[in-house]
């Protein structure tokens, strides 16, 4: 069965610093991989997705993620964090029959 692990429950970074959020997945075939962001009291917004091809994927709001098959990872990165990036981030893997399996989430705090 597919699964997603986000090892960091909370991460705090300074504004302007770089960011990397970790995601490891378990899936028997070539995965579809996603990152979503959730601001407080809101639904989830898609940041980026990977299906095939170039393993470095660009998303909205200056985020990117790199698919590494050998490490079963799909880490999210941003070179310079803004205070408005404070939110909860979810990694997800596409499973059988269109279902997505989500990780437990990482809460990002940005300090000024």
């Amino acid at each position, binding site marked *: 069965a597919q699964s*997603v692990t*986000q090892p960091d*429950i909370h991460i705090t970074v300074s504004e302007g610093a770089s960011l990397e959020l970790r995601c490891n997945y378990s899936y028997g075939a070539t995965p*579809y991989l*996603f990152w*979503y962001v959730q601001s407080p*009291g*809101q*639904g*989830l*917004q*898609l940041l980026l*997705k990977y*299906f095939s091809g170039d393993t470095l994927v660009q998303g909205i709001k200056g985020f990117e993620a790199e698919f590494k098959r050998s490490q079963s990872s799909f880490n999210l990165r941003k070179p310079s964090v803004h205070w408005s990036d404070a939110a909860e981030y*979810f990694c997800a893997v*596409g499973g059988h*029959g*269109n*279902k*997505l*399996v*989500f*990780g*437990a*989430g990482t809460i990002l705090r940005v300090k000024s």
Partner: protein
Amino acid sequence: DVKVTQSSRYLVKRTGEKVFLECVQDMDHENMFWYRQDPGLGLRLIYFSYDVKMKEKGDIPEGYSVSREKKERFSLILESASTNQTSMYLCASSSSELGYTFGSGTRLTVV
């Protein structure tokens, strides 16, 4: 702009009540999903539907049922609400594996 609309942002219900959570999408998507979100647990799939009048159990269906009489509407039903069903409920729709569109969520409190 495409939308998934959940009828209530906040609900407070009493233990034992029958509760209906409504979700409507305007994208003509075949697939619709209900998740619940709890701190530290992420999103867990309750039920999903690939077509009208069709439903499949997700990972945590106990205590819930669903109804999909029309393509655009997918309802989650708590047959007899309990305090352990206090949670954020998220509806989503999709037309393929190309990602979901989520509603804004319904925060349900059962007292």
